[in-house]
């Protein structure tokens, strides 16, 4: 995702469900509105889970990027 500078980066490579989501929720609680969290994860379930979590919580899924060994997911905290 070009042009996006995350305010915080979460290392979830090697973690399986539900820990990437658990850690994402914890991180988002410490962040302010409109800040962007980047999640690095290689769990295949994260493709659906990050989106589903955003849909349910109202936070904004900005997109994902294939970084080879893992994916980078970008989420903006809702106002």
């Amino acid at each position: 995702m070009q042009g996006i500078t995350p305010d915080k980066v979460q290392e979830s490579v090697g973690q399986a469900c539900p820990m990437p989501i658990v850690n994402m929720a914890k991180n988002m609680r410490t962040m302010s509105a409109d800040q962007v969290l980047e999640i690095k994860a290689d769990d295949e379930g994260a493709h659906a889970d990050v989106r589903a979590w955003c849909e349910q919580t109202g936070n904004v899924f900005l997109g994902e990027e294939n970084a080879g060994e893992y994916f980078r997911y970008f989420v903006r905290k809702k106002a």
Partner: protein
Amino acid sequence: MAENGKGCMIVQMSGDFDKVFAGFTLASASAAAGMPTTMFFTFWGIKAIQTGNLTGKGLMGRMVGLMNRGGLQHLGPSKFNFGGVGRWMFKKMMASKGVAGLEELRQACIDLGVKFYVCKTSMDVMEIRREDLIPEVLDVVGAAKAMRDADAASVQYFI
């Protein structure tokens, strides 16, 4: 995080390793999504919130406490336990795949604000005392409290 007006209520009746894993996984995912989440532990499920010491007062109570020892470290899978070998095997297989252990999952639930309640009647029958439970258990309650929480929730699971 703002609550979205929904909620999740889980009755954890089973104390098998795999089914406790399912309970804590769903509870942590639900709490992570901002849903008020409660878990009601009853019968064998109480093992998941015991500290792991030996329990029981009378002969039969002590026997249950010994043969069905509580505490996450003592839980065996519902299939292929083979006297503890299965538990060791599943733990190894899960760790090698980056899957969180039961302790980590339970702590995630606690950190995210999942409320733990325990069934009074089951504790009496199994001769489990409040001191045998982890301090994060909020209260010892009855079926009416479980029903009220289930009624208030938009999602209910019985595991």
